């Protein structure tokens, strides 16, 4: 009986692994597509604005990042990577490991003054009146970033799945 349970569990893990692999392939293809679209839109923007108007002259050597990667722990214990806007308030997730009770309302604090101004849209480095192709390029690259976060999470899950499944499979 116990052996059958183990085999059933192994089967479901392998099916999950294969499903993850399929999703990973699809997301990789989508990421490649977005990045290619972004570069093509940049070429179209150069056609409309001039080659020297969309290039290294328009951005500073040091930049403030607009997005960052947020690592959190999923219920199954694996790391979950998400791409979020830098400085955004992320609602705290209470994981299963949190044993202690949490106070619903913390002690009242005086609100801290806003130390940084709102981050500037990188689109404005190229001017205020930019062509539609440049906006499309920005949208494509933004989508690509989200996909990159999902791909990283999937790859963590797949590596874990491979580590668990294959030694057990051989037994």
């Amino acid at each position, binding site marked *: 009986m116990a052996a059958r349970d183990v085999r059933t569990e192994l089967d479901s893990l392998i099916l999950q692994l294969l499903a993850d692999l399929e999703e990973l392939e699809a997301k990789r293809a989508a990421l490649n597509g977005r990045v290619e679209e972004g*570069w093509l839109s940049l*070429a*179209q923007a150069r056609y409309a604005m001039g080659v*020297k108007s969309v*290039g290294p002259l328009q951005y500073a050597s040091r930049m403030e990042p607009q997005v960052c990667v947020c690592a959190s722990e999923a219920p199954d214990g694996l790391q979950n990577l998400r791409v979020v806007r830098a400085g955004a308030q992320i609602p705290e997730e209470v994981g299963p490991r949190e044993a202690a009770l949490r106070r619903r309302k913390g002690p009242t604090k005086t609100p801290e003054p806003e130390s940084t101004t709102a981050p500037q849209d990188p689109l404005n*480095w190229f*001017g*205020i009146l930019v062509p539609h192709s440049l906006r499309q390029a920005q949208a494509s690259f933004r989508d690509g970033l989200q996909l990159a976060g999902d791909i990283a999470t999937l790859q963590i899950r797949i590596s874990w799945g491979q580590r668990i499944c294959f030694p057990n499979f051989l037994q």
Partner: protein
Amino acid sequence: MKSNLHILPSTTDLKIHLQTTDYGNFLNNQTNPLTVSKIDTEMRQKLCREFDYFRNHSLEPLSTFFTYMTCSYMIDNVILLMNGALQKKSVKEILVKCHPLGRFTEMEAVNIAETTSDLFNAVLVETPLAPFFQDCMSENTLDELNIELLRNKLYKSYLEAFYKFCKNHGDVTAEIMCPILEFEADRRAFIITLNSFGTELSKEDRETLYPTCGKLYPEGLRLLAQAEDFDQMKRVAEHYGVYKPLFDAVGGSGGKTLEDVFYEREVQMNVLAFNRQFHYGVFYAYVKLKEQEMRNIVWIAECISQRHRTKINSYIPIL
């Protein structure tokens, strides 16, 4: 020549193919890898040499006509330098990328200016751009929005002055150049409107950027200033027999953008300039058609380097 470029696997092959044309060995001094930016820079240098040849052989009033032609490149260079200063780039780095047709001695000092009045009084007062500053003077710090406003206001004044010069010259030059400059003015009004949707530019500010020497002035410009999306803009264009077919051609199976359609129209008008004789418009048309050729070559080079062979034929042929 263009028909063979789409089968080239790399930009080095593009260089070899261009050697068989008028361009000759203009890329010989460039080291590998041959980037699109390098090709563009060398083509510009070649055009500048040809232009200087024309200018050195010219007498008045043709010399003034040539000066007017260089003003648009000067405006672009000034804006490039100011934007570079905002991004803390060194002047040397930007000067290399400036358009050679718009070179002037005071260029290196542009980045020290903090307001438009500074820029005028300290740097540009002795240059051909000085007369175009009359509507642009302000004490506001030059941030991205103000630089954009400055660019468009300078260009508006320049275009109106150039138009007046051609009109006063009269003769075949006026017959050829005035419609071309009217189209340029209207094109700028449409493109400014299109690009301003969804930005912080107000409708009142937008209206101050429209050049007034085109067919759209005054009613069309007034309507365009109120437009809030592409369809409203298209309805304004439908009042004008020249612009209705252009807007109808946008989209469609070829996925043409408004800019593409305008470039095609510009090419048509410039090609027709060569059908008349003894006028200055041929010099203007030659430079503009050369620019379109350069845009086409850069597009083909980008498609080759990004491996988008199917998109190569989206350039505008000059027939």
